[in-house]
């Protein structure tokens, strides 16, 4: 086999892994969009915020310490403990649920019945707010997140491929773990929405708000729940991205790439989010590998968007989206 083909295969595999991470963020979007019709731009920032909170709690940082020190002239920074990862994750989940409740109570309860585009802009405002809040609470420096996930090259694959092609593939253990976790998460979400009472209520709300309300489903509870689930997905995505490249602002920009993933897959489809993520992940890696050097590189910045744009021109509802029917 030629070298290009072997390299291409490695790039393909790495693209698949990156795609899984995009899909993880996209999942959170789909959940909220299906249940409440809100296109949650803040999902990426939620992932960042969740990861920051996790690091902060695990390291025992004092929230708002910078602000407190500036106002009162004190010198507090740390509580002086180091919590195990599991406790930290549970506590961060608590924070995300609290946040979901606040978002519902303070913002979206007052915006019921507004046009979708107004809701979208509100989530942009929310994204800005949380960005500032996260930095204010935990500081803006780049943090290292380590919850004990395996990292580094997977030797087994390296050896296997070396024996096959005389060239060892570099596949990060973390990516494999992320793939497994994403798969479990999707299965759990599907099971949750198919087999539990709350899950069915959630699907009913997604189908028709008014009908759901009239059969006695508590709308605001469902919405808080959906935002919490999205917060959980954001936390998982935040852990993966954070472990991979550190908890920093650019995390929320990477999460922005979930948007073309969604457009490709359709806003309302969970399988679409997965498929879209994989297509974008593989596509941008392969494009960068094959065409990138010819036109100056760093094509990953825009490839996903342009691909989604071109795709949409031919199929406006995305791969798996519901057909858009419009009436006057």
């Amino acid at each position, binding site marked *: 086999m030629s070298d290009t083909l072997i390299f291409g295969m490695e790039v393909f595999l790495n693209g698949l892994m990156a795609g899984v991470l995009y899909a993880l963020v996209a999942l959170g979007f789909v959940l909220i969009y299906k249940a409440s019709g809100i*296109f949650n731009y803040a999902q990426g920032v939620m992932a960042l915020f969740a990861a920051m909170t996790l690091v902060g709690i695990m390291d025992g940082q004092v929230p708002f310490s*910078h*602000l407190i020190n*500036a*106002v009162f002239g004190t010198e507090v920074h740390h509580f002086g403990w180091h919590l195990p990862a599991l406790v930290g994750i549970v506590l961060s989940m608590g924070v995300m649920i609290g946040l979901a409740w606040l978002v519902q109570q303070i*913002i979206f309860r*007052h*915006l019921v019945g*507004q046009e*979708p*585009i*107004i809701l*979208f*802009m*509100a989530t*942009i*405002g*929310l*994204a*800005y*707010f*949380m*960005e*500032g*809040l996260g*930095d*204010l609470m935990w500081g*803006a420096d780049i943090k290292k997140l380590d919850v004990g996930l395996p990292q580094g090259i997977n030797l087994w694959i390296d050896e296997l491929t070396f024996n096959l092609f005389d060239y060892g593939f570099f596949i990060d253990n973390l990516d494999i773990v992320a793939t497994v976790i994403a798969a479990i998460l999707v299965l759990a979400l599907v099971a949750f929405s198919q087999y539990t009472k709350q899950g069915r209520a959630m699907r009913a709300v997604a189908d028709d708000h008014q009908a759901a309300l009239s059969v006695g489903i508590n709308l605001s509870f469902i919405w808080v729940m959906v935002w919490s689930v999205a917060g959980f997905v954001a936390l998982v995505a935040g852990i993966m991205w954070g472990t991979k490249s550190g908890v920093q602002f650019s995390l929320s*920009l990477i999460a*922005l790439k979930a*948007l*073309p993933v*969604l*457009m490709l897959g359709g*806003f309302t489809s969970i399988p679409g989010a997965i498929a879209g993520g994989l297509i974008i992940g593989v596509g941008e890696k392969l494009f960068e590998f094959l065409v990138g050097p010819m*036109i*100056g*590189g*760093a*094509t990953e*910045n*825009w490839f996903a*968007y*342009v691909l*989604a*744009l071109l795709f*949409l*021109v031919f199929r*406006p509802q*995305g791969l798996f989206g519901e057909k858009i029917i*419009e*009436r*006057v």
Partner: protein
Amino acid sequence: MLYREAGDFKTSYQDDNQTFPIKFDRYRYYAVLFIAFAVIPFIINDYWANAIFLPFLIYAIAAIGLNILVGYCGQVSLGTGGFMAVGAYAVYKLMTSFPEVSILIHVVLAGGITAIVGVLFGLPSLRIKGFYLAVATLAAQFFLVWLFNRVPWFYNYSASGQISSPERTVLGVPVTGANTDAWASYMVCLVFVTISAIIARNLTRGSMGRKWMAIRDMDIAAEIIGVNPLTAKLSAFAVSSFFIGVAGALFFAVYLGAVEVGEVFGINKSFLVLFMIIIGGLGSIFGSFAGAAFLVLLPVFLKNVLVGTLGWPTDLAAHLEFMIVGGLIIVFLIVEPHGLAQLWRVAKDKLRLWPFPY
């Protein structure tokens, strides 16, 4: 008492259709123009020009442009930063390629080039709408910034990858480059703002603006009553991009002087201008000015209060600014989705009756 229609008789259709039908408004408008053109240039200094007036005026042009697209035609765009970059790089290439032509013509041409690019990226709007379109315009944002970063022709193969504006004069007075006086750059921006606002105001209340608004309110219904969606949407993209391109050109050539594209025209710029029109008021020219003024003044104000008075570190102030801007967006959307312009309208309605209850 002064703010009345009563007693102000209109004797021609032209009078009846004028922009400011109330006498008080008209005189206020002349007074504002007089102060802006004949008073401020004599008292302005570098700090005021660079911190407040230049960004305000330039963002006002950009906000008018985006407001035409989003507020009047209902096509949400997140590509403003990218289009401003097109304006900036177009004016840079024109300035360096044709040094003998006036900079004013270059700025207008840069707007025209941006309009063409805007129409190109507006083409998908015929097929996709709503969120899909908003995300599609992100493609413009990222692709254009990447293009200007990676293709050396655009920055004339300069080693740093930056572009910086050479010195150009208008009527013998330098308006770009290092030797520019505050009042000269202020006047250039002011002239462009005034003309843009007048053009935009008259476009939006003419047949073109009515078509845009019909598309915004419901595109299918508009199509049925005979509005051509192709020309309406694409003309909105063209006009909007023209203004945004002019704003980008001024932002680079007159205000900053040197630009690194990813930093200055990144996605945050797109959001900033979008926030301006949300806070100012969608579908209102006055709102574009109000929003631009608000978001230019807010950071200056916060910085002066938090850093200057309370002595907090600058990074804290920056984080708080993010929170306040985000919070304000949400508050405005909940309390007053039509923005500052609506508050102004309500105040004017109250003024008409004041001090009598009926």
